[in-house]
């Protein structure tokens, strides 16, 4: 089908429009949201199989030839990311049916969720730098609203920081983009890549690379630009922070990977070395932040940062195995992190608190939830044979292969620290007993809303099964990740696929 690459953008767009029209009819809205999410997932899978077969799928929007119109490009990396976005989107849509209050529902939760998905998928597909900016903004706008929707105090305070820092990032992005257009006179990423291979002002190009690094680095929550994330991610309802945790920073990571495998590859000894240093700092500060937190979601939020460090580490090492590790890591992370946030949501629903010092005893009162926590938590900590182990393993192997022992050792150490903070949650909330100081409010467990238990658990179970599957049979995903990495490392194939020219 000729327009397959456009569908991951169009389906959420249409879904959101329909939901907006039916804001006052909640049943209709929910139906549209669910159907839209499922359709999105189906077409994402179709896109994935198509890219597996053909390598690249390129759509020239409006039928205008490549450097002039806007290209939507789906390579294997993009389609993997889109598939994950669709999986997350579907899981969250189902979870939200049970977990989102009617107020937020009638004030546009579903349309914003789907517009967020549209923005995210747009970012993954954009083959045009300005178009990427536009999708970034779509995603940001949707996330701003989802973050603030409901108007709780924490949401607003966190929202202020989130909004301002992300807008500054957008300003940097736009600045860099404007200068780049002045330099090469084109916006198509493949075309830019072609021009940059021979561009004269290499100093300026490297400086631009830095500007992009900062702009995308803020969105990806790299050290030292991550402050907006821990300030805000734990404040909105869980369905929202789960989708944020799974997808948003990964869009930044995606943009970094795209930019530093396609556009800025002339001065690798400088740019990628710097990325590696940033990766190390990001891993370490993130995990240290997580270790000292006491809130369920706060710990998880800080972990996002340290995990982003791992993903970027693969980019910095810049070998086929390392990039395959990055791709694998992203896939693993999105599934696991989303799931952990969902678990934290059910925990919150049961006890109305997220403070680990007030939680306890879930192992006896909610044994099934405990298992659902353990799978992603241990996977996050990198214990074999779960998905996180393989993800870390590939990266560490790649770092040793390149004789970068320091970062490899750091990767191992951070894994241990991750284990400490994950066991902290387990020890306090699941194994421990409710502390005597706060028995009255939190000891007795509430019931989940009747008839909705299945909706809460279905997404968590599916995601946990995915984690297990990836962990026990890592071969298939690794194969995909390797192919994606080899595509990423060969920008000429990308250029050829988009522009139809050979270099």
């Amino acid at each position: 089908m000729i327009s397959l690459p456009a569908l991951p953008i169009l389906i959420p767009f249409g879904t959101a429009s329909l939901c907006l029209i039916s804001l006052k009819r909640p049943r209709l809205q929910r139906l549209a949201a669910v159907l839209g999410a499922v359709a999105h997932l189906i077409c994402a899978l179709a896109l994935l199989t198509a890219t597996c077969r053909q390598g690249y799928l390129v759509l020239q929007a409006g039928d205008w030839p490549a450097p002039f119109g806007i290209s939507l490009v789906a390579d294997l990396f993009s389609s993997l990311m889109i598939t994950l976005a669709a999986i997350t989107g579907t899981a969250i849509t189902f979870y939200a049916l049970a977990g989102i209050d009617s107020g937020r529902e009638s004030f546009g939760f579903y349309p914003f969720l789907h517009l967020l998905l549209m923005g995210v998928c747009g970012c993954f597909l954009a083959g045009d730098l300005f178009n990427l900016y536009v999708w970034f903004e779509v995603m940001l706008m949707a996330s701003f609203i989802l973050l603030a929707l409901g108007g709780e105090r924490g949401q607003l305070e966190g929202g202020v920081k989130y909004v301002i820092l992300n807008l500054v990032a957008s300003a940097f992005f736009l600045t860099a983009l404007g200068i780049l257009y002045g330099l090469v006179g084109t916006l198509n990423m493949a075309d830019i890549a072609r021009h940059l291979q021979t561009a004269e002002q290499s100093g300026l190009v490297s400086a631009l690379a830095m500007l992009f690094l900062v702009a995308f680095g803020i969105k990806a929550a790299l050290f030292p630009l991550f402050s907006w994330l821990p300030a805000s991610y734990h404040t909105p309802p869980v369905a929202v922070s789960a989708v944020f945790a799974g997808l948003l920073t990964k869009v930044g990571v995606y943009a970094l990977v795209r930019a530093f495998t396609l556009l800025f590859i002339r001065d690798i000894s400088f740019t990628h070395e710097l990325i590696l240093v940033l990766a190390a700092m990001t891993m370490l500060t993130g995990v240290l932040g997580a270790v000292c937190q006491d809130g369920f979601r706060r710990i998880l939020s800080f972990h996002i940062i340290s995990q982003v460090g791992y993903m970027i580490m693969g980019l910095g090492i810049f070998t086929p195995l390392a990039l395959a590790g990055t791709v694998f890591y992203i896939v693993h992370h999105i599934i696991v992190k989303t799931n952990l946030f969902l678990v934290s949501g059910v925990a919150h629903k049961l006890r109305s608190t997220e403070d680990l010092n007030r939680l306890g005893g879930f192992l006896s009162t909610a044994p099934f939830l405990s298992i659902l926590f353990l799978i992603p938590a241990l996977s996050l900590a990198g214990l074999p044979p779960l998905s996180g182990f393989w993800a870390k393993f590939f990266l560490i192997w790649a770092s040793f292969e390149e004789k970068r022992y320091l970062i490899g050792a750091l990767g191992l150490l951070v894994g241990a620290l991750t284990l400490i903070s994950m066991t902290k949650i387990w020890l306090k909330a699941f194994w421990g007993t409710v502390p005597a100081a706060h028995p009255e409010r939190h000891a007795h467990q509430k019931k989940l809303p009747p008839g909705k238990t299945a909706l809460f658990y279905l997404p968590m179970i599916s995601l946990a099964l995915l984690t297990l599957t990836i962990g026990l049979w890592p071969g298939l995903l690794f194969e995909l990740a390797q192919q994606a990495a080899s595509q990423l490392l060969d920008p000429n194939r990308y250029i050829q696929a988009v522009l139809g020219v050979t270099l």
Partner: protein
Amino acid sequence: MGPFETVAKGKKKAMRSIILSTAARFLMPMILLFSAFLLLRGHNLPGGGFVGGLIAAAAFGLYLLAFDVQETRRLLRIDPRTLVGLGLLVVLGSGLTGWFKGKPFLTALWGRYRLTGFLHIEIGTPLIFDAGIYLVVLGSAMTMLLALAEED
């Protein structure tokens, strides 16, 4: 003190209200016509759906100043948020028409129609696209304005 509060207080002063409301009733259709004109000529001269939509919103804004939220809602007939959704659907629909010709998304289709004698009119999906923009801008601006007006 915001202007809407001023208006609310001013409403008691009948004089001002009469002048403003008369002016609004009179100007309103003119401005709306002008916005439609801007929308249509945008493809060839400065203008377009965006500016047109803004001007249309300004017309309703004027009405809002002269009367009140309920009146404006009644005049608008349709919930502004639905307008946003509709506009987005129009945009989507105009983009999808390319599919019928087996072309990629957003491919423009143009048709040339004879009105009478020598007068021809060219209609294409980009114009529908622009109309969608007009609707979204109008809907969005009105959503904001009405919400802000109700707050004060």
